[in-house]
């Protein structure tokens, strides 16, 4: 498969990057985000405790349970990964929309996302694009690269399929952020929700600002 690619030693800016390294990096993002969130929560708890000791009357943060509960933790992780993805998306859009002629409408931008950008980041195109022509787009990738090598334990033994799916979801936060960043750089404000109902497929629901549901 490498026979048709230019030899990196002869071309100026081309080179090979290990796809596996990239995959491993993306995988590590999620536990890292969890670790940082837990770390910061612990530090905040220590700081709050010291404030309480000195009686500075800090308002209740919502219970005295140390650290964050499951929901807050997930939100923190989502925000962190989404923001990282967003910044990456901004840069990707600038770099890869370079040679293209100007985009004529939002659908053009979405198609660029599905075809050109997905190939750059995930080495394949989006498999299915649906739209209601009123600002909502649903992108389906039936073999989403980050989920490709995931396997879940079988349902049963006290764990339902939903909790299994919930475990996979944080790995979609970064790609969702990338989508949001690319769209924002190309002039489209949108919210992106990523879901997986069946590994290794993933769907991304893009809702542009001002669209009707």
């Amino acid at each position, binding site marked *: 498969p490498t026979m048709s690619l230019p030899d990196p030693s002869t071309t100026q800016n081309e080179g090979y990057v290990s796809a596996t390294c990239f995959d491993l990096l993306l995988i590590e993002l999620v536990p890292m985000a969890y670790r940082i969130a837990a770390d910061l929560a612990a530090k905040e708890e220590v700081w709050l405790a010291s404030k309480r000791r000195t009686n500075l009357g800090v308002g209740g943060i919502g219970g005295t349970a140390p650290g964050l509960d499951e929901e807050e933790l997930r939100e923190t992780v989502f925000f962190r990964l989404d923001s990282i993805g967003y*910044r990456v998306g*901004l*840069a990707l*859009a*600038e*770099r890869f*929309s*370079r040679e*293209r*002629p*100007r*985009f004529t409408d939002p659908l053009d931008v979405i198609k660029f996302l599905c075809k050109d950008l997905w190939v750059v980041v995930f080495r394949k195109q989006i498999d299915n694009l649906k739209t209601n022509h009123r600002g909502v787009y649903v992108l389906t990738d039936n073999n989403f690269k980050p989920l490709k090598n995931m396997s879940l334990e079988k349902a049963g033994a006290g764990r339902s399929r939903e909790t299994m799916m919930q475990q996979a979801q944080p790995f979609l936060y970064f790609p969702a952020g990338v989508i949001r960043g690319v769209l924002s*750089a*190309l*002039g489209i404000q949108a919210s992106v929700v990523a879901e997986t109902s069946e590994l290794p497929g993933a769907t991304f629901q893009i809702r542009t600002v001002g669209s009707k549901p």
Partner: protein
Amino acid sequence: MASLVPGIACIGVIGKQNNPLHISLFPPGERPSLEFSFMLSSSLDIFEQRLPHKMADQDFGLLQAIDERLAMYGYLTNTGVKFVVIVDMEGRPATVNDSKNPAAVGLRDSDVKPVFRALQTAYVNLLRNPFYDPDEHMPSVAKAQNRVGSTQITSQKFIQEVNRIGELWRPGITQL
């Protein structure tokens, strides 16, 4: 007496919200910055006016010939960033590197294309700097955060690269 050849007088980088990201003047001390800021602002009108008609290409080419000496060229990226180059037909004293036949016909759009290509490369490289956050340089975001002060680019590398491009350019150069 040395003849004068065209040289770049000013390079402007303008952001998505029409905010100035960076302005470089060549030679640095000798150009009145207020006048050139005004010219850059007027270029924005031309971008807006021509935008609906402009189809495929990003290169707006010659925006306006300001007077006999100065001409403005513009380029719009897909992400809304505008590069404006103001060329002074008598910008620099001729050196041995310049061609023996000065361009009596004036500049062509293709002469300025390498400048835009190099500027866009410099901007893409700026975005690859993790310490540069494009959102921080948008006035709407700065306002939301109640920040005061300029939203211009402060990256040394980018500014140096822009200056290098501006100083190196001459008509007929193909690679910057």
